[in-house]
């Protein structure tokens, strides 16, 4: 409860608590192409209903997305039955949607009806090879002996991968492992004949591959469907259910390929699909490139600014408090140092159960990261004030408060400022990861770009973030010059 309150207070402080009309519905997505495309389709369906909607795309994984949904941070995202069944509910791989929905009731969420396609493991080979050998089902492979088979390392190990497959179908091959990203290229240039794929990969379209039917029903079912909160408005549920059974494997492959190979935006692909379905869409409202750059930069500054401000207040105050208590200072520095060693993405993930997703947990995580450099530099600077000056400050009759204000703090200024500067630069860098928990900022294009393997999109986030870091350095240099007499400047120049 208390963390929530703190969170709410921060939210209000940061000026994002918007009052007034009903809040927009929020649609989330995970950080891979298919999830973006399907989420964008949901968004456009809601817009077509004339309702306000907000995108919270690129969330960093199943647990983050599911927790966000359960906590009401988002209202819906697209999930796979097999994933929920195994990763969330621990029910094995064959649970039906209605069985899953019974188990999901206690979480306040449910699956709507699946889109139709099954994004699972599959075996694929070139269409010509398949035609030449008359292969359509996995069982057809059993008598084949001359085929070169290579599968991804993960597939080779997983129980629902190769070991289970040979047990079910009775192959006798011993394939070697290959990097998944290289397998398509290897198939295309003929250096291998068969590999494992995800059944809706856009590459299947691009390279003209044939997917063999899983005729013994071995692979678990990963049916995609909207996973929504039970309180989602009925009109929206109805709109989503129009898509029931309307996306088969081939359609999904085509939509994915549209983004990955044809360079279309998610919005364009989604709009194109809905138009084919005879569903009227409104013009996509996605912001233009400059607008989104401006928006992302502002969010980024807000994230780091608030976190840094808090870290300065707490770090300096704690530094002063701890400076007077030697024993405590070791403990505090140790804890702050420990916080620093938690990988940033893990710290962000740890925030979710307590603070949900979005801006608040991101700010808190950045705050914790900024704390150490400021705290450590404050303590070090206070400790390294010349003992003679400390003796004089006492002997001349300054009260402890006056000693701090007129002697210790000003003399520690160069060190403290250097700590703040380090913290600021670290925050700006780390804040790019905040996009994984839906906080936005310059990490947004980076996360999307990573999902799409789109360098120019990555750079749209990375370059402004780097420029911000450089600008921060320069600003702090200016601040130091303005605040400190020249001979006390401690910076690099």
């Amino acid at each position, binding site marked *: 409860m208390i963390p929530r309150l703190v969170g709410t207070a921060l939210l209000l402080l940061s000026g994002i608590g918007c009052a007034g009309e009903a809040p927009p519905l929020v649609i989330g997505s995970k950080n891979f192409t298919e999830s973006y495309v399907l989420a964008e389709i949901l968004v456009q369906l809601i817009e077509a209903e004339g309702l306000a909607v907000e995108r919270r795309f690129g969330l960093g994984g199943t647990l983050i997305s599911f927790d966000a949904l359960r906590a009401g941070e988002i209202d819906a995202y697209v999930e796979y039955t097999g994933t929920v069944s195994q990763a969330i509910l621990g029910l094995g791989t064959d649970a039906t949607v209605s069985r899953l929905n019974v188990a999901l009731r206690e979480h306040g969420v449910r699956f709507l009806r699946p889109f139709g396609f099954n994004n699972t493991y599959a075996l694929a080979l070139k269409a010509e090879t398949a035609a030449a050998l008359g292969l359509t089902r996995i069982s057809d492979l059993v008598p084949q002996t001359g085929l070169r088979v290579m599968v991804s390392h993960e597939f080779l190990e997983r129980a629902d991968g190769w070991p289970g497959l040979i047990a079910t179908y009775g192959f006798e091959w011993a394939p070697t492992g290959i990097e998944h990203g290289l397998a398509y290229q290897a198939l295309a240039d003929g250096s291998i004949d068969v590999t494992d794929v995800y059944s809706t990969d856009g590459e299947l379209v691009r390279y003209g591959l044939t997917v063999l039917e899983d005729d013994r029903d071995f692979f678990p079912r990963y049916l995609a469907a909207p996973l929504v909160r039970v309180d989602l408005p009925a009109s929206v549920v109805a709109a989503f259910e129009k898509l029931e059974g309307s996306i088969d494997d081939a359609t999904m492959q085509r939509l994915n390929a549209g983004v990955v190979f044809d360079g279309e935006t998610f919005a364009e692909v989604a709009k194109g699909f809905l138009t084919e379905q005879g569903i009227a869409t409104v013009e996509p409202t996605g912001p233009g490139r400059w607008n989104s750059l401006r928006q992302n930069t502002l969010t980024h500054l807000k994230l780091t600014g608030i976190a840094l401000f808090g870290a300065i207040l707490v770090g300096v105050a704690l530094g002063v408090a701890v400076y007077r208590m030697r024993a405590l200072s070791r403990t505090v520095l140790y804890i702050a140092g420990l916080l620093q060693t938690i990988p940033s993405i893990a710290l962000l993930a740890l925030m979710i159960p307590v603070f949900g997703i979005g801006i608040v947990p991101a700010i808190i995580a950045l705050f914790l990261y900024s704390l150490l450099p400021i705290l450590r530099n404050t303590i070090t600077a206070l400790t390294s004030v010349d003992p003679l000056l400390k003796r004089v400050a006492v*002997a001349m009759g*300054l009260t402890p408060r006056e000693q701090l204000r007129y002697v210790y703090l000003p003399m520690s200024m160069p060190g403290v400022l250097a700590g703040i500067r380090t913290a600021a630069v670290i925050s700006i860098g780390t804040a790019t990861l905040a996009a994984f928990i839906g906080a936005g900022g310059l990490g947004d294009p980076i996360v999307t770009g990573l999902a799409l393997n789109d360098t120019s999109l990555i750079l749209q986030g990375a370059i402004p973030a780097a420029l911000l870091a450089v600008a921060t350095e320069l600003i702090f240099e200016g601040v130091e010059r303005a605040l400190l007499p020249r*001979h006390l400047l401690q910076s690099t120049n």
Partner: protein
Amino acid sequence: MIDPCVALRGVGKRFAEQWVLRDLSFSCPAGETTAIVGESGSGKSTLLQLINAVYLPDAGSIEVFGQAPPAIDTPLYRRGIGYAVQGAGLFPHMTVRRNVTLLAKLDGWSEADIAARFGELLGLMGLDESLANRYPNQLSGGQQQRVGLCRALMLKPRMLLLDEPFSAVDPITRLGLHKQFLNLRSVEAVSTLLVTHDMREARKLAVYLVILKEGRVIQHGPTREVINAPDDEYVKGLLESLE
């Protein structure tokens, strides 16, 4: 001696189990300069810190102008006692003016009073007004020491504690500082305790001597008497440096 500024009776001070001052008993004349002479480690600086209430004695009693140094409200008490050290100990982030006038400002003096006193002290110590806005690192060692003395005198204290303030400068500068100090003493009759290891300096500046060795008083008395009648080999040794 009718009105001593400082009177010690059987004073001892120890840190942990180590006694650094033992059984000190002497009085210093008010309105005059007393030199505490001894080598390093003799407990001279600790003695000053007993007087300005940084430490309380572990044995015996101290009176400063007839009263024991207080255990609480010590900052207020210390503001009545000027303090200057070897190396001056000026705050590097403050100008000369700020260094000298800080306490007066905190005590709520008017700007006019501060400016008048500041100007007066610069004049007494032979410092040019143009130095007022400089930082300590822009001053010579001798100038820094003189600014340090100005700071100690700003609040017109009844007593001045000087912890080897003249020892970190070259001999010629030191002679200048001595002259300045005597000049100052002729104007402001503040009771002064001067800690030094230099017998020449003590003879020149002080009317009363206290010779300390390993935390004990070896001899004390008016300067002339001590010089004429050293009653210890150690004191004789010190006096040889005067030949």
